[in-house]
């Protein structure tokens, strides 16, 4: 029997950048095939080709042994390929059942049959055992519920190939179990499942085979049984774990530089945090747990409902963001494209922007010294390891890793006391990560306070001296030293019982 999907020699180039080169991938009926790799390794590109979002530059794609050309998501769906995207393909302003049938509304005569849509949607969720009110607007649902709608939507199409891109990223343990039950059922029906996840511990439960990608190449396909977690990580990164995360020495009993007291803001229901000098404070939690928003609230990036913020012993509650930044806080946005960088400007100009307030670049009448700025920005460029040739390129043309280095560089323009890094290594390759981690080490060991907010568990666990876990808008645990274990952290992701919506 021909495999459900057979991709051979798939190469994909985006204007000058090779996202995939010569990747082979096979999916058999009734198989769960895991794609494993870092961010930017090419997993998303590969499934985007399979689900019809992009066309491959080179290579062939066979479905049931027949060569296929997928020109749109619609094409792929028509051939029985259903995808649960990581970036949700839900329309927040529409109701659940409207979303599930979007693009394939059943009709009676010229009109859509809303009754049939409601029935069909309800049936899918009953089958899945998910408890969702199909008449609610998607914007009213929690992220986990949205994820379940997304899964329901793919199932509704009776897909034979189901692509799940990080489906458990925002599910609770109970919901994850339900999803796995469903996966087992679907396997028995001969559905082939492509499964993307960073959670290695899940693989043992459901996976049959694992394909590891690195830098757009297939490193190998291994059987899920008999491959250890350590082996997988080393396949993924191409180096041993100890080489990646530096050992950061900690200042004992460092002074409290910044403190948050009972902060309430959107998505945060009260959190008190002490930020100490010479220490890396890790902040973990699911997307939507409030781990990032508590800082955004403190910095005035979203309205602060109540609570007090103090910086170096001074009450700074409610001060505008620019004043807080001037007073010694550096905030690295998780969204470098929208919030962090001027994409059309050069790397140098982006870094220079953070230098304009320095007294040593000012001349009389408010002019600045271009020569001094040039010199300083070059120094910073060297420090964060951006090659001089890249300094004069528009940031939009740089790789994710180099963009992130520029963003880090903006933090070195002036002396700061507190460095808040929100998802500092999103979409960054392992080599750059190691470089960024070394920068974090330098900063912390120079006696500054570092706050590291991250969804990447190994990252926060390995770098943080003290780790806060957020769940449902509150701090559910504060761990220190040896008590920072994966089991402990994950347990606290879900401790707070979910409120009735």
């Amino acid at each position, binding site marked *: 029997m021909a495999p459900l999907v057979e991709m051979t020699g798939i190469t994909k180039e985006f204007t000058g950048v090779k996202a995939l080169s010569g990747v082979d991938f096979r999916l058999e009926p009734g198989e769960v095939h895991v794609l494993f790799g870092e961010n930017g390794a090419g997993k998303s590109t590969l499934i985007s080709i399979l689900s019809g979002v992009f066309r491959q530059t080179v290579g062939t794609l066979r479905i049931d042994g027949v060569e296929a050309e997928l020109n749109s998501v619609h094409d792929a769906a028509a051939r029985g390929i259903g995808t649960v995207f990581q970036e949700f*393909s839900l329309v*927040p302003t529409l109701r659940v059942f409207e979303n599930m049938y979007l*693009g394939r509304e059943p009709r009676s005569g010229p009109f859509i049959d809303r009754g049939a849509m409601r029935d069909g949607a309800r049936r899918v969720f009953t089958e899945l055992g998910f408890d969702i009110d199909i008449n609610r607007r998607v914007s009213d649902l929690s992220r986990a519920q949205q994820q379940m709608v997304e899964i329901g939507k793919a199932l509704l199409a009776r897909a034979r190939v189901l692509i799940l891109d990080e489906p458990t990223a925002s599910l609770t343990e109970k919901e994850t179990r339900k999803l796995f039950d469903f996966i087992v059922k679907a396997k028995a029906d001969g559905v082939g499942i492509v499964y993307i996840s960073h959670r290695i511990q899940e693989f043992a439960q459901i996976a049959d085979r694992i394909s590891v990608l690195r830098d757009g190449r297939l490193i190998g396909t291994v059987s899920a049984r008999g491959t250890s977690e350590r082996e997988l990580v080393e396949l993924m990164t191409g180096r041993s774990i100890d080489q990646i995360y530096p050992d950061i020495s900690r200042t004992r009993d460092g002074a409290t530089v910044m403190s948050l007291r009972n902060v309430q803001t*959107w998505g945060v229901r009260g959190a008190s945090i002490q930020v100490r000098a010479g220490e890396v404070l890790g902040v973990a939690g699911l997307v939507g747990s409030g781990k990032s928003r508590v800082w955004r609230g403190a910095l005035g990036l979203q309205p602060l409902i109540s609570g007090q913020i103090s910086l170096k012993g001074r009450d700074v509650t409610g001060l505008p963001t620019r004043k807080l930044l001037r007073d010694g806080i550096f905030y690295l946005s998780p969204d470098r494209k929208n919030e962090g960088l001027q994409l059309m400007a050069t790397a140098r100009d982006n870094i220079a922007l953070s230098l304009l307030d320095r007294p040593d670049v000012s001349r009389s009448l408010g002019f600045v010294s271009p020569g001094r700025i040039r010199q300083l920005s070059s120094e910073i460029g060297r420090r964060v390891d951006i090659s001089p040739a890249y300094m004069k390129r528009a940031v939009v043309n740089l790789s994710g890793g180099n963009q992130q280095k520029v963003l880090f560089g903006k933090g070195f323009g002036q002396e700061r006391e507190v460095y808040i890094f929100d998802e500092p290594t999103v979409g960054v390759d392992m080599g750059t990560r190691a470089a960024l981690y070394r920068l974090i080490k330098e900063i912390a060991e120079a006696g500054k306070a570092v706050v590291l907010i991250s969804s990447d568990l190994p990252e926060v666990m390995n770098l943080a001296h003290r780790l806060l876990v957020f769940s449902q808008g509150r701090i559910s645990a504060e761990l220190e030293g040896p008590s920072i274990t994966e089991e402990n952290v994950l347990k606290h992701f879900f401790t707070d019982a979910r409120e009735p919506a």
Partner: protein
Amino acid sequence: MTDQSASKLAGPAGLLKALFIRLGVLPFFLAAALIIFSLVSTQFLSMQNLTNVARQSVYLVLVSLGQMLVLISGGFDLAVGTAIAVTSVVSAMAMVALAAWMPDMVWVAILLGGLAGFGSALLIGALNGLGVAQFGVSPFIMTLGVQSVGAGIALFLTGGVPVSGLPFEFGNFFGFGRIFGVPVPVLFALVGIVVIWLLMNRTRFGAHLYAVGGNLKAANLSGVHTKRTLFLAYVACALLSSIAGVLMTARVESGETNLGGTIALESIAACVIAGVSLRGGIGRVENVVLGAFFITLLQNGMNMAQIGSYLQMILLGSLLILAVIFDQVRYRMLMGIR
């Protein structure tokens, strides 16, 4: 969730907040207008005046329905006034020429003239749709540009002089006629409302339009033909404006380039006040009809209160901005509470 969290606040304040989140600012504006104007003039609430307002509101209702389609798609159409002017001029010129050519078949001339008007508006809508959907020009710039182009064409065709000598039957029926006592323009509006309601609530096009405006990327990933949907929204908007244009031409009994001069602003105001989100994806037909009715009612009331037209412009503009501010607040309440 929004009603529940709002109802946690006890008493009338919570009720008002729930009402605001659900329906937007319109009920409050409408209540305020009714109270103020009925105090100023005893005639205001008379049946005769309200019927009059209903008849006057027909044109704005039709255009606002079109504007709503485009707003829901996430854009807006500044060229609705131009669509009206071009329709007026083209249909009038065609009717005059055809009626002279075949004096025995006045109704054929009227029909063909009307179709010529629709055809010209269709071109305007297609131009807008092409620019926005295919070339990704921002709706603001595209429709602003087309608005200038269309106005220029209308002026060029007529030299700025109104086109007179329209067949008597045209104005008599489409402008002033009644069927079973109901003014003909009102019938057009009623049919328009029903058709657009069905379109938005019961057809794929409607579902896709809400989706495109709600999240373009998600709609695309769900297999919605987003470009076609956007394109059709602009075409439909121009056609609805064009119908209003023909009816207005019949009412003034001449083809005029200055018809619909302020209607872009008025229709956007009507929609926004009626809770259509400027971010797209949200908006209901019945509320928009009420919104357009409200704007006409407001103008009627201000006339009765003898507020000059200059001052009316100031008030209308301020009201639009106020409505947008309230929309912003409401959006935050909708999206922020979780």
